[in-house]
């Protein structure tokens, strides 16, 4: 009897919380951004990838059921320097002829509390796949969901910058990836 009333209460709560009823599944790439930060001779610099495709569904109340897959066109890199932009698609850096796309596929998304979440998944760049963990925040702005997060990776783990560029005293090994995604709900 007592157990039953608990279940009823729980059911009532679930029905009565419309905030968690929405699933965001359409990322507006034009409003979203992927920025990378790195240090060159200890000078902090940033660049962006302008072309990417995101397939995702995320319900803040059910993070365990959420999934995200991001495909980044690596040749869309903008380092802010035209010489460097010409260098990036080359074999020593991304080798985009052979590996045109960088990819993140989530394996587990969990809530950390207070609007904070964590996405674990596999990041593939230049044919190398490694586990990454990206903490992010979620907030709602009107009908849109805003996701902001960042994580760090080591470029040499993915053989990005080989040969003479493997010298991490000049271009640092650590790269930060900062993302800002805007998503809405498909009607």
């Amino acid at each position, binding site marked *: 009897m007592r157990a039953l009333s608990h279940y009823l209460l729980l059911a009532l709560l679930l029905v009565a919380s419309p905030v968690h009823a929405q699933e965001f599944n359409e990322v507006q790439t034009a409003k979203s951004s992927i920025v990378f930060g790195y240090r060159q001779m200890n000078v902090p610099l940033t660049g962006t990838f302008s072309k990417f495709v995101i397939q995702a569904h995320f319900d803040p109340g059910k993070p365990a059921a959420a999934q995200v897959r991001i495909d980044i066109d690596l040749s869309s890199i903008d380092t802010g320097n035209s*010489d460097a932009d010409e260098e990036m698609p080359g074999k020593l850096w991304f080798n985009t002829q052979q590996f045109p796309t960088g990819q993140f596929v989530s394996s587990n998304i969990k809530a950390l509390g207070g609007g904070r979440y964590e996405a674990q998944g596999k990041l593939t760049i230049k044919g190398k796949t490694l586990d990454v963990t990206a903490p992010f925040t979620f907030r709602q702005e009107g009908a849109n969901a805003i996701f902001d997060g960042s994580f760090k990776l080591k470029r040499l783990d993915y053989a990005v910058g080989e040969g003479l560029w493997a010298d991490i005293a000049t271009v640092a090994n650590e790269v930060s990836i900062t993302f800002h995604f805007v998503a809405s709900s498909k009607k």
Partner: protein
Amino acid sequence: MATPHRYTTSAIALHWMVAALIFCAFPLGLYMSDLKLSPLKLQLVSYHKWLGVTIFLLVLVRLVWRATHTPPALPASIAAWQQRAAHALHHLLYVLMLGIPGSGWLMSSAKGVPVVYLGLLKLPDLVGKNKALGNVLETLHASLNYTLLALVLLHIAAALKHQFVDRDDTLSRMLPFLERKP
């Protein structure tokens, strides 16, 4: 009023330090700008910027020295117009020694690669990132440098003329060991 017959030791040290640094920074800038992108180029560009900041700071110290000291008088045998020309040239050299690193700093900001002095201290960006402005400043930086090159050659030629043609004690004011015994 008796003016000293030579620059103070600190003024002499500052003059020759700045001269030596300019003689490093100028050819380095010329060499690195033609290099293909490589880690070496990135290193040299940073070293060039550090040299520029150092020159800028030392020139500020030289201005403080100037403001607090009377430079030794030029020999009275030098014609008044030549004395005026010498002063004008010195003024121009100071303007360029500040303006060249300044234009390099502006150019770094406009090109979106801030100056981090000695890899430790990030200088504030003077202007926002702007590719067109960056290219204009690059041209300005180079033009100012070629102007400096011309003026430094004139400066050296004048010093040598006074030492070996006029045989007056102009150069010994900056190189006391050259002073002729009366």
